[in-house]
């Protein structure tokens, strides 16, 4: 490992240790837990969109799948370790199939958007119809629009009686997010990650250099979905119920807004965007003057128009300018504009 990579890891660990220690004094851990989970969900889209150039309108589908797979398998298995693994693995597997279908079909841009959106809708509509008692997987009734309550929540591995909840759940989620963040960092530094960025920049060129673009995009897509699935499984543990709204278009829209606001092409941006906006929404939910959907919409429009790079890159270049270094990085957004120019 190079020196800069080591420094990166140490910085990440120190900053996140401080945050994990300090944040619970400012915000309740119950709220913090869901912010951390949303951060992970934001990171999952930030990875495939910001670094892979794959705009998925259906990241919520993977979030919902992860949650449902966890709930269903937890009811059947009666403990949480294997269901957590299944939630990640099966979601990634589903994305692998979906991705292969799309990327080997050479679908790009808006067509990719349509398919991912449609798949989300299919899941949403399908799950909504499963209210009847005939819809069950093992002992788990799918429950239609009522969702699935009452499943085994997170426990210490090997001891189904030792539940992890409240403050402990927060610490588990936070540590999981740090681990996922470090894994994403490692992935992006690896050849695979650098090749993914190359593909984002110019698919044709990468293919002409001998890279199997479709295969690589499929794998990256599946990794992103796996992370979203993990976030979904944690969400199921936090909410203690899973409902079809997890698959809703509104949920997908929110993930995209987090990435835009936080900043694409950065690892931190989507996490900050997710946690920040989710907290804002939570605060807005406590007043009834202004509808908070209105505010979310306004935030998205304003960022697309006036700060298309997002907060983190903007603050980053402000910082660099103020310490006198020239910002070498291009605007993170160019790749998107270039694709549709």
């Amino acid at each position, binding site marked *: 490992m190079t020196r800069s990579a080591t420094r990166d890891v140490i910085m990440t660990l120190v900053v996140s240790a401080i945050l994990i220690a300090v944040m619970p004094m400012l915000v309740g851990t119950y709220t913090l837990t869901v912010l951390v989970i949303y951060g992970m969900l934001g990171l999952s889209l930030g990875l495939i969109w910001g670094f892979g150039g794959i705009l998925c309108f259906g990241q919520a589908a993977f979030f919902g799948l992860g949650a449902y797979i966890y709930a269903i398998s937890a009811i059947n298995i009666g403990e949480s370790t294997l269901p957590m693994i299944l939630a990640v693995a099966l979601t990634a597997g589903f994305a692998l199939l979906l991705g292969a279908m799309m990327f080997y079909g050479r679908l790009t841009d808006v067509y990719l958007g349509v398919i991912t959106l449609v798949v989300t809708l299919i899941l949403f509509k399908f799950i909504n119809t499963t209210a009847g008692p005939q819809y069950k997987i093992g002992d788990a009734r799918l429950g239609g629009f009522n969702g699935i309550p009452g499943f085994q929540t997170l426990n210490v591995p090997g001891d189904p009686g030792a539940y992890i909840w409240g403050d402990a759940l927060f610490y588990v989620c936070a540590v999981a997010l740090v681990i996922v963040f470090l894994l994403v960092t490692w992935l992006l530094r690896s050849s695979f990650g650098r090749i993914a960025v190359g593909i984002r920049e110019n698919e044709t060129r990468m293919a*002409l250099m001998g890279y199997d673009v479709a295969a690589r995009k499929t794998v990256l897509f599946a990794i992103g979905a796996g992370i979203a699935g993990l976030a979904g499984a944690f969400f199921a543990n936090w909410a203690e119920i899973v409902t079809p709204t997890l698959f809703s278009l509104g949920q997908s829209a929110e993930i995209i807004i987090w990435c835009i606001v936080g900043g694409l092409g950065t690892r931190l941006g989507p996490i900050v965007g997710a946690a920040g906006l989710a907290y804002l929404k939570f605060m807005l939910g406590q007043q009834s003057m202004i509808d908070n959907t209105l505010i979310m919409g306004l935030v998205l429009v304003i960022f697309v128009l006036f700060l298309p790079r997002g907060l983190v890159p903007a603050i980053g270049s402000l910082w660099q300018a103020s310490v006198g270094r020239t910002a070498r990085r291009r605007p993170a957004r160019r790749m998107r504009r*270039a694709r549709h120019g």
Partner: protein
Amino acid sequence: MAETVLETAGLTMRFGGVTASDNVDFKLQSRELRCLIGPNGAGKSTFFKCVTGLLTPSEGHVFMRGQEVTGWHPHQIASLGVGIKTQTPNVMDALSVHENIWLAARRFFDVAEARARADDVIERLALGPIARTDLGQLAHGERQRVELGLVAVADPWLVLLDEPAAGMSATDVDRMTTIIHEMTRSAAVVIVEHDMQFIRSIAETVTVFHQGAVLMEDHVDRVMADETVRRVYLGKNA
């Protein structure tokens, strides 16, 4: 007898009613340098695209080192060790020169070896001063040179270049001629080109395309002197 590295048999490409490439038989020996010329719409670029897998020919076959590669994807053809440069500069704009070239090398070599080869090519192509600059900020000639670097770094045995001299200054063209000559030490090179000046300076054997088919194939001097070629390509009064 040298090995045939590229061969097409009856290669035909139709777009609707237009036959852009008409029954082309083409052979290229290893370490040969060949220029494809012809007026606009003669079918050079279509031929190029069929060979590189960017288009799938309607009829006919493409062989590389004796292996049939008809209908393969570009990445499969490139993986054989074929270096391809398309007509418009095709580079990763938001990445630096070094990153671009490293990515090309990484396909065939491990991380350390790729870095070493990238450094080497950057030095050979005199890209050192701009190695850390993003491609998006470079001038056209520099971008063309970097793309040639992308091709060279993978150590190909067959190089296919579509209009490498387009829009370049005289100094840039000179430099590129040197690079291409260097490539022919280890690879066969096919160049699709418009620029007669450039072809005169570099070519030995030239294949002339006209209306999708091969009109003639001979040494550059005899091609230039040929009446038919002058008529179809250089205009009647040339």
